[in-house]
């Protein structure tokens, strides 16, 4: 059985390809897909689709096998029950362990499947910084709002950015004051708007390594088309440097690493973190069965004292990830230091456009500068994003801070730890 609303990377079976463009079937629906990053893909293959782009050709046999379990309620529950028993055995007599699920999509899947309530008492799951909307600093959100309000450009964004509070308002409120802001499913739609001409179009490029290659592909396409009215406001962040920074400050016993970021960067990308901090890491898929298997793998590693990276999500993740997606990032972006909400400035944790693509940099084009801005008063999103606090530790949680009136970003994004904890709270009785 599948957790709905799991994550915006979904396996699609390719139905047709013509050049870069084609269609893939995701369960019962067909969607248009761009295959620029996976030229080796062929009809019948499974690909991981994110924001309208195929990121990687998956292991089709493994996907088919996994889908057989996930599409059956009975098979899923049998497998989950086996895994809960296995976890109880593994955890028996073990000192308390703190495992971090780095990715917000994992946080939601864990909450929706009610996993925490059934874990052994000494196994504690902590939410991490893997929610792009949440870690974007206030100053960068203010910059987008300033641009949108100035009327100099039409801003195009993924839906989850609209309600993130800036210093004075959010993008939704800016829209109410006349700013032109469009919400899209894929950045390709922003390119299509720019192609019509007549106005400046700026895409708000947030996201981790999963989204960065899609933005890179779009920027390359804009360059090839010679578009001079399209640019991107880049707020990308990179996961491994953030994990390194986080582990330098916090003590954790294992990491559940993000499945779709890893689909792009490969599981070897965590080798350094695992070695440096002597911590076991498991790259996990997003179905509840995947997550339970990953927890079991981490407890086994704990038992044997082995630190290193293991890959539970082999149907999508390989050692080196998706070569062309990585290449697209490298071609278009350089790494730079980046500010993270809750984690401060982290060396080499952000992306900026390379000089040859500098004309697509909206910040330079519209002379925008991110200013440091204070966090909302009383908000503990920073501590929550770095695993130092849990949502209920915050006095605002569920009181002054609610999904309909969010104070901090972790309550805005549906992948945010606070939103997940609030929306999917266990019912008594």
């Amino acid at each position, binding site marked *: *059985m599948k957790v709905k609303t799991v994550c915006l990377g979904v396996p699609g079976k390719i139905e047709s390809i013509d050049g870069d463009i084609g269609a893939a079937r995701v*369960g019962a629906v067909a969607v248009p897909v761009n295959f620029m990053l996976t030229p080796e893909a062929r009809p019948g293959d499974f690909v991981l689709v994110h924001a309208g782009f195929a990121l990687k050709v998956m292991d089709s046999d493994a996907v088919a096998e996994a889908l057989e379990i996930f599409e059956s*309620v009975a098979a899923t*529950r049998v497998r989950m029950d086996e895994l809960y028993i296995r976890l109880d055995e593994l955890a028996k007599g073990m000192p308390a362990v703190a495992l971090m699920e780095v990715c917000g999509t994992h946080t939601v899947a864990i909450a929706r499947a009610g996993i925490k309530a059934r874990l052994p008492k000494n196994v504690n799951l902590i939410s991490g910084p893997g929610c792009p909307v949440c870690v974007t600093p206030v100053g960068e959100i203010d910059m987008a709002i300033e641009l949108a309000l100035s009327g100099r450009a039409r801003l195009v964004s993924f839906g*989850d950015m609209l309600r993130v509070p800036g210093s004075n308002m959010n993008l939704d409120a800016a829209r109410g004051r006349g700013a032109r802001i469009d919400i899209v499913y894929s950045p390709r739609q922003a390119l299509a708007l720019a192609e019509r001409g007549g106005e400046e179009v700026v895409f708000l490029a947030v996201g981790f390594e999963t989204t960065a290659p899609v933005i890179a592909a779009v920027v390359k396409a804009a360059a090839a088309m010679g578009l001079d009215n399209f640019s991107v406001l880049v707020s990308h962040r990179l996961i491994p440097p953030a994990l390194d920074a986080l582990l330098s400050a916090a003590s954790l016993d294992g990491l559940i690493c993000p499945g779709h970021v890893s689909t792009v960067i490969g599981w070897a990308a965590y080798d350094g973190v695992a070695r440096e901090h002597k911590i076991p890491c498991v790259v996990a898929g997003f179905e509840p069965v995947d997550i339970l298997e990953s927890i079991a793998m981490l407890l086994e590693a704990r038992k044997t004292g082995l630190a290193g990276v293991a890959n539970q999500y082999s149907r999508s993740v390989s050692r080196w990830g998706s070569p062309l997606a990585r290449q697209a990032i490298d071609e278009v972006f350089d790494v730079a230091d980046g500010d993270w909400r809750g984690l401060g400035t982290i060396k080499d944790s952000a992306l900026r456009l390379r000089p040859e693509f500098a004309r697509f940099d909206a910040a330079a084009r519209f002379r925008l500068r991110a200013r440091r801005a204070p966090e909302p008063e009383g908000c503990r999103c920073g501590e929550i994003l770095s695993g130092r606090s849990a949502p209920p530790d915050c006095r605002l949680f569920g009181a002054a801070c609610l999904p309909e009136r969010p104070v901090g970003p972790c309550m805005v994004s549906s992948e945010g730890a606070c939103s997940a904890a609030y929306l999917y709270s*266990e019912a008594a*009785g």
Partner: protein
Amino acid sequence: MRQDAFITLAHGSGGRLAAEFIQRRLAPFFPGLGEMDDAAVLRPTGRDIAFTTDSFVVDPLFFPGGDIGRLAVFGTVNDLAVQGAKPSWLSLAVVAPEGLPLDLFDAVVASVAAAAAEAGVSVVTGDTKVVERSGLNGLLLNTAGIGEMIPGVDLSAARIASDDAIIVSGPVGAHEIAVLGQRHGLGFDNIQSDCAQIAGLAGELAGECGAAVKWMRDPTRGGLATVLNELAVAAKATIDISEGLIPLDPAVRDASEILGLDPLYLACEGRFVAVIARSHSEEALKRLRLRPDGAGAALIGAVTDVGSRHPQVRLLTGFGSRRILRYLASDQQPRIC
């Protein structure tokens, strides 16, 4: 392109052009407008009447399975139907921006007329306004509707008791997914909006089961989850539903996953939720399912703990866990992750 292919401010001016516009483009579709006096005169049969109004905007104006015209008729008709009324009369107000192509306007008007005929209601009064282009994107339609209460129907949250059954009239969420798919160029070819009139189905249920039907509502914005929360509050009760029993088209489920949305919060435009006394729930379900427009009806849960000080909706998930299903915080939008 011909100069007269677009709406101009003059069409709404009250002058000769406006009069011609109404005579040519509206009157032929709506015989109920009659002599075009300043107000319609209605002749109810003497029963209590239900009266409601709603305004409609949608982007895009035409989507798989419907358009703004059908929405505007069915939205109001359905609100009357879930109140236990048989819809009879509608008003129609159209607010259009200057520059709107006239053939688009005509297509919407034709659709309103067809939907009204389908729902068995008569458009008896109307208005058009043209506003400056900057003031409005697309079209705004407003309908008000009047219907007569069906004899023997007694809908009131106060009558809801523990163990009453909760029925939904068909698969949920298709409308919003069809609109979003169209808006974002995803073209889900096998998803049509559920946009339809439910007066026939709800009327039959109310008529046949009488007082055993205690409460009805249509899950439009905010979807099934929001209506169930409204029910919990209205009945001061706990609502227990099972995820596995909720009718959901696999294509809608998978399209929701692609867009990052929860189908339980997606708007429907041709469904209703009904609370029915347990003694009549099987009979009610059977009757609904006999009709083509009720073939997908399902019993999804029950009311418990009436009189509770903490009204809530509990969802028994497919994983066997039980969680609280809350109100929708804000409109769902396609997400990055």
